[in-house]
C-alpha cells in the first residue's frame, strides 16, 4: 500500500517536473529540474526492486552526466531563451495524434493482450507483482552474474564505446591550434 502510493507520487512528480523542465527560460533551471526527475526515477527503480540500478542511476546520471551538462551551460554563459513556438503544421498534428494512438495501444492492456496472445512464452501471461523472495538481497549478485556471462560481449563493446567517446569528446572540444589553421 505504502509502496504503491509512493510510486504514484514519484511518477506524477517526475512527469510534472519534466513537463515543467521543457518550458523554462533559463537552461540552468531546466538542468536542475532534470536532476530532480532523475532522482525520482531512481526512487521508482528502488521500489521496483532494482536497488543496484537505482544507486547507479544517481551516481552516473545525476552525479556525472548532469554535472557535465551544468558545466557546459555555465561556461557557455547562455542567455535565457525566449520561448518561441513555431507554427505547427497540420501534418505534424496528424502525426502526433497517430503517435499518441500507437503509444496508447502499446501501453495499455488492449495492446498487451493482442501482443501476448501471439507469443509463446508463459512468463508474460502470468504477470506477477514485483516480489523477488530471496533475490531482493542478492540484486547485485544476480545482475553481475548475468552481465558477465550472457552479456559479456556487450559489456566489452560498451567499455570500448566509452573509450571512443572520451577520446572523441576531447578531440572535438579542443581549440584549433593556430599552426593547424595556417597549414590548412
Amino acid at each position, binding site marked *: 500500500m505504502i509502496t504503491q502510493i509512493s*510510486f504514484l507520487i514519484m*511518477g506524477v512528480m517526475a512527469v510534472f517536473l519534466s513537463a515543467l523542465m521543457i518550458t523554462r527560460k533559463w537552461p540552468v533551471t531546466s538542468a536542475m529540474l532534470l536532476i530532480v526527475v532523475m532522482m525520482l526515477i531512481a526512487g*521508482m527503480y528502488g521500489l521496483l*526492486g532494482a536497488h543496484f*540500478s537505482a544507486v547507479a542511476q544517481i551516481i552516473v546520471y545525476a552525479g556525472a552526466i548532469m554535472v557535465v551538462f551544468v558545466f557546459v551551460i555555465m561556461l557557455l554563459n547562455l542567455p535565457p531563451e525566449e520561448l518561441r513556438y513555431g507554427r505547427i503544421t497540420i501534418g505534424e498534428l496528424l502525426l502526433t495524434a497517430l503517435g499518441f494512438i500507437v503509444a496508447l495501444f502499446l501501453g495499455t492492456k488492449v495492446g498487451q493482450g493482442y501482443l501476448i496472445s501471439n507469443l509463446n512464452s508463459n*512468463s508474460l501471461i502470468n504477470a506477477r507483482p514485483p516480489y523477488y523472495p530471496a533475490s531482493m538481497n542478492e540484486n547485485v549478485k544476480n545482475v553481475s552474474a548475468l552481465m558477465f556471462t550472457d552479456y559479456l560481449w556487450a559489456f566489452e563493446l560498451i567499455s570500448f564505446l566509452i573509450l571512443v567517446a572520451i577520446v572523441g569528446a576531447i578531440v572535438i*572540444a579542443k581549440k584549433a591550434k593556430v599552426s593547424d589553421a595556417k597549414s590548412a
Partner: protein
Amino acid sequence: MPSLPELGIYFSLLLFITGLFGVMFRKNLIFMMLSVEVMLNAANLAFISASSMTNTIDGQVIMFFVMAVAACEAGIGLALIISLYRAKSSVEIDDLRILRG
C-alpha cells in the same frame, strides 16, 4: 489499482512523450539534449518495469548498457555544442543553416 510495474510502463510512456515534445518544440540545442536525456530515462524505466513484470534480471542489465550509451552520447553532444558555439556564437538550430536543412 494496476500493479507496480504496469504503472511504471504508463509513467515511462508519459515521460517519453514529454521528452519528445521537448525535442520538437525547443530551438536551443541544450534543451533538446536535455529532452533526449528524458527520453532515454523513460526507456530505462520501461526496461526495469518489464524486468520486474517477468521476474527476470535481463532488463536491469540492459538498463546499464543504455545508461552507458546515454553517457557517451551526452558527452559527445556537449563537445559538439561547445565547438559549434565557438564557430557560430549561437546554439539555436535556426542559426545553423549552412546546409539549408
